[in-house]
């Protein structure tokens, strides 16, 4: 993949780029890597879904080790410490294809992603050399411990503390909802030094005073481990403080920026799987003497599912290419890494919201298309449905991401690093431009403004991709815009209270798209 981009954070709003990176452009050998991920999912993971959900002893750590042997656990970690040093966009595409089963996906996503990212971006040579090789090889499973029973969205209100006692840090507190806790040997832990300064610590499970308790009973993702990390006078060597004292929030939040981008990929994986399964089912299932794929309302579902997938996929990999370009331009030093990870924070939040909400819609419609069988465990949709619900909750709830998105844009604009003048290159962009004038502080309008921004981003990404790719992509784009326009009109009304007329839409495009999907059974 060659990185060519003139985009900067939020520039999508005021400037239409000539072209964007689209997932068709991964190089041939990158495609081969992505292919390995798909085959690994299909052969090693998906068939074990029930056993994974039962948390069969040793099964998940074994799968992670296998994934590690292929090289999947350190794709975008530094090459000098056991990683492959490849780009984040490629890592995300591989993650998408390793996400057909969500329990495996979250386990893999955390250990290959946010558990290592803090170290990769902020670690000293010695710290990276100590931990990255074991995580990147899959020998160790890693975890990321920020949330607490009384501090979730409001993460900085955490009560975990660290005190310096002689030649060590002593940590106390309880971290809740920690993915991978059951299996993890390594935890990136956020705690406040002297109850004041949020700081990041590299904590091994074997350190005195560290324990894991209470596996949660969850609605879905039953095969993933979610448990508490308990720190009772936990002893951590002085050199295991990551970055600087009082700067743990930079570690935590920059890991989350990239984490949100990666989560978007993790959400598209199950969506893709749902489309794949449902398309086949629609062709096979006969009622009234015909395949249900002959019926208009079923065809509309297929068209909508693919259209949402297509548009979000466009926005996601456009963002990833931009992130890679930012790292290529600025990365290397700690300050540079920080700048690179922050540059597209708004876009990371946008794709997190877009992908998780597209996933929810796609999976819901796919289940509906299965009728009663969709509600049974014999068919794959029931599991996908339960598993996907959490996507809108973690890595920042979608509410928090909506608040963050508009707020970040405003702050960038205040600092002279973004323009609030919309280019008006689409219906959503025009409305976003007009709504911007009413930028207020109440959450409902802020949320609606964020919706206009993320719809603008998705529409523009899908439009450029469709122009570049042509064919069925044009139909998918057309269908998506139709939906996006309606959403944009609603959001605009929420902000301004004014009426707004919708652009027209071309009759027949749903049928054309459905025909194309059924001809290839492919989510494009």
């Amino acid at each position: 993949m060659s990185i060519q981009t003139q985009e900067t954070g939020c520039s999508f709003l005021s400037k239409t780029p000539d072209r964007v990176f689209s997932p068709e452009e991964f190089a041939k050998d990158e495609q081969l890597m992505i292919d390995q991920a798909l085959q690994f999912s299909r052969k090693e993971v998906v068939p074990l879904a029930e056993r994974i959900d039962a948390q069969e002893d040793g099964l998940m750590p074994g799968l992670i080790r296998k994934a590690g042997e292929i090289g999947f656990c350190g794709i975008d970690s530094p090459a000098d410490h056991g990683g492959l040093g490849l780009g984040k966009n490629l890592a995300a595409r591989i993650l998408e294809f390793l996400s057909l089963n969500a329990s495996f996906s979250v386990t893999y996503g955390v250990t290959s992603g946010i558990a290592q990212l803090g170290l990769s971006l902020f670690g000293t040579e010695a710290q990276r050399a100590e931990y990255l090789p074991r995580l990147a090889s899959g020998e160790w499973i890693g975890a990321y411990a920020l949330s607490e029973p009384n501090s979730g969205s409001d993460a900085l209100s955490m009560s975990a503390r660290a005190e310096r006692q002689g030649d060590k840090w002593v940590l106390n507190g309880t971290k809740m909802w920690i993915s991978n806790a059951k299996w993890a040997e390594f935890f990136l832990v956020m705690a406040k030094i002297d109850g004041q300064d949020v700081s990041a610590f590299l904590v091994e499970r074997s350190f005195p005073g560290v324990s894991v308790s209470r596996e949660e009973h969850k609605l879905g993702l039953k095969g993933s481990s979610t448990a508490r990390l308990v720190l009772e006078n936990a002893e951590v060597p002085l050199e295991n403080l990551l970055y600087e004292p009082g700067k743990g929030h930079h570690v935590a939040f920059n890991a989350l920026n990239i984490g949100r981008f990666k989560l978007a990929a993790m959400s598209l994986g199950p969506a893709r799987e749902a489309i794949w399964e449902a398309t086949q089912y629609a062709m096979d299932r006969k009622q009234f003497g015909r395949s249900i794929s002959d019926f208009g309302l079923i065809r509309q579902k297929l068209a909508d599912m693919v259209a949402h997938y297509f548009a979000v996929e466009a926005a996601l990999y456009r963002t990833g290419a931009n992130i890679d370009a930012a790292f290529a331009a600025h990365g290397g030093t700690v300050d540079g890494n920080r700048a690179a990870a922050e540059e597209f924070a708004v876009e990371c939040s946008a794709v997190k919201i877009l992908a998780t909400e597209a996933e929810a819609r796609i999976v819901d419609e796919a289940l509906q298309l299965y009728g009663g069988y969709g509600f049974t465990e014999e068919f794959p949709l029931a599991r996908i449905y339960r598993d996907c619900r959490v996507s809108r909750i973690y890595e920042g709830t979608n509410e928090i991401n909506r608040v963050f998105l508009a707020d970040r844009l405003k702050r960038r604009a205040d600092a002279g690093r973004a323009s609030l003048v919309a280019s008006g290159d689409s219906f959503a962009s025009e409305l976003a431009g007009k709504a911007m004038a009413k930028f207020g502080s109440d959450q409902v309008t802020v949320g609606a403004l964020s919706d206009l921004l993320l719809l603008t981003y998705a529409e523009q990404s899908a439009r450029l991709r469709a122009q570049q790719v042509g064919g069925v992509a044009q139909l998918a784009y057309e269908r998506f815009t139709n939906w996006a326009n309606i959403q944009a009109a609603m959001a605009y009304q929420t902000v301004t209270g004014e009426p707004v007329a919708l652009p027209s839409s071309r009759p027949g495009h749903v049928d054309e798209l459905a025909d194309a999907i059924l001809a290839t059974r492919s989510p494009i």
Partner: protein
Amino acid sequence: MKILVPVKRVVDPYAKVKPLPDGSGLDVAGVKFDVNPFDEIAVEEAVRMKERDPSVSVTVVSIGSGDCEEQLRKALAIGADEALLVETTDEMDSTVVAAELEAVVRQVGPDLVLMGKQATDDDCNQAGQMLAARLGWPQATFACKIETAQGSVRVTRETDNGEETLDVPLPAVVTTDLRLNEPRYIALPGIIKARSKPLSRQPRATTAAPKTRTIRLEPPPSRPPGRRVGSVDELVAALRERGAL
């Protein structure tokens, strides 16, 4: 020991393809290509031999358009040492392929040619046999197990009457069956390494012309819908009725 593995670029066997409207070929726009699965098994086997015995070297060769580089790189990623691309856009059948491979064998000088028993696009199952005949080498087709010995290979082959075991003196041509092995997941570092492994291109060495010509391609006629019967008796009656019994 030096092993030569020919690999063919074929339409992804799982892709749905349609003939072009004029029947002159397949509509491959947007279709994925891959290494012929039988050839991938041959590459895998050769690489396993190399892993057991470091003195083994593996060369892969493809005959076709410049796009075949993609398939050669895949073979290199699995673990082959070097690749050769005989670049041509000529129409070819098994005769032409065997003639070109003969030239490549004389150039590379392998002890063993290991290749797929057939390709999933035209399913001819001829190139290996024709190559052995041209070279005057012994051949063992449809291998499901290969063991190496001093100066020979012991090949177990699947036949309709069970398994047959042959000791074949080298140099020889061996063609692979599906059960020989299950190709590995290609490790990502291998894919990165393959970028810098040697791949040389050369033009065709012969003027061999195809003996067959494609006249028209058309999709198989669609099957009429089946009918459900309630019992074995009904089934037998229905088969009788159609003269099938």
